């Protein structure tokens, strides 16, 4: 029987009233990973953010310069940004708690290429939201891409841990992440 080309290797909901979810022990037996997530902002947080960024940290590495990325934001306007000395990966933007009748769902899709190799790993991410602000449409879609280099010590880099976290606002327990493994 032929092997499955794609496996579901991890899935979990956020605990609720938390910003972060971490997956550990990711097997090194696949070629690529795809992260598919549904992120819901806690609208009762009282933080009054219109939106917030979503970050990714790999192998619990927060060393400045580990992450380099670009991003392109689109919606009512357009903007672009990049980072060459990042301590995290900027992978998306989600609805904030301001003018949100519902914890609007923000889809997040990230593809990590060649993640198990001892070499820089690149990713591509898509994320965004639409929100009805007192009957006025608003929203931002963000496409980002970039690369993550091997740790400064030159140690092996295969990615075994992935953390996805919102920069300021909490996420509800209906927020969920699935990680798919792609075989060679």
């Amino acid at each position, binding site marked *: 029987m032929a092997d*499955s080309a794609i496996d579901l290797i991890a899935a979990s909901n956020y605990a609720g009233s938390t910003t972060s979810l971490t997956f550990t022990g990711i097997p090194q037996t696949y070629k690529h990973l795809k992260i598919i997530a*549904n992120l819901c902002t806690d609208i009762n947080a009282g933080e009054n953010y219109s939106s917030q960024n979503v970050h990714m940290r790999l192998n619990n590495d927060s060393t400045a310069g580990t992450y380099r990325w670009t991003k392109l934001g689109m919606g*009512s306007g357009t903007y672009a940004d990049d980072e060459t000395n990042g301590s995290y990966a900027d992978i998306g933007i989600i609805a904030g708690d301001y003018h949100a009748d519902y914890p*609007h769902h923000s889809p997040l899709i990230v593809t990590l290429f060649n993640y198990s190799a001892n070499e820089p790993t690149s990713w591509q991410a898509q994320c*965004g939201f639409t929100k*009805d602000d007192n009957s006025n449409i608003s929203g931002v*879609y963000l496409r980002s891409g970039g690369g993550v280099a091997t740790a400064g010590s030159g140690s092996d880099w295969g990615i075994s841990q992935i953390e996805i976290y919102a920069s300021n606002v909490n996420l509800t327990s209906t927020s969920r992440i699935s990680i798919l493994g792609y075989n060679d």
Partner: protein
Amino acid sequence: MPFGLSKATVLGAAGSGGGSYDPAYTWIEDIKTSNSTTQEIAFTSLPSTYHALHVIGNYGFTAGHYTEVRMTTDVVNCMASGYELGGVGSGGPYGANSNQSTRIFLGGYTSSSTLQNDPGGSYLEMIFPGYTNTDEPVAGYAYCSYPTTAGWNSNLGFEGIIRADSPNTSGTNTAGLDEIRVRTSSGYFYENSKFSLYGIGTATDG
């Protein structure tokens, strides 16, 4: 595996990949037009056993039209946020926030002089994570391309986030994401246009 449980700890203990994992993708349904007089296709029986739904379309038009999407049986406002990007004569990127009354427009449309009068020619992909949630309006990712080079606005594609305003706070709309419809703004899909629906992962309230 029970819904909502993480495999992360299991992975840490096992440390190996292979056949013990759940299948990530499950094919659900294909819809293929058998003529060139079909304006709309619909996935109306959405299983509730997956984390996300994935739609892939490869289709043509009988003339230059928009592609439109509806995500619910409720006739409600439909919102999109993203960008449009074109080639010859159309340029971009253009930021695109929109609020349509019944459907979501996915960018520009093909010209009547180019690829649309063939099977294929246009491509659509959508992913809806957390689609089973009926407490709040669910959003999805959408990408649509029209690979033609004739005329201004004829080849603008769309990429971004789409959402229908169901359920809403007033309670007049309650269905949530209970069906997926794709249609042309006018005219028809070309014969042998094909749309496939897949399920991803395992279901949860999220």
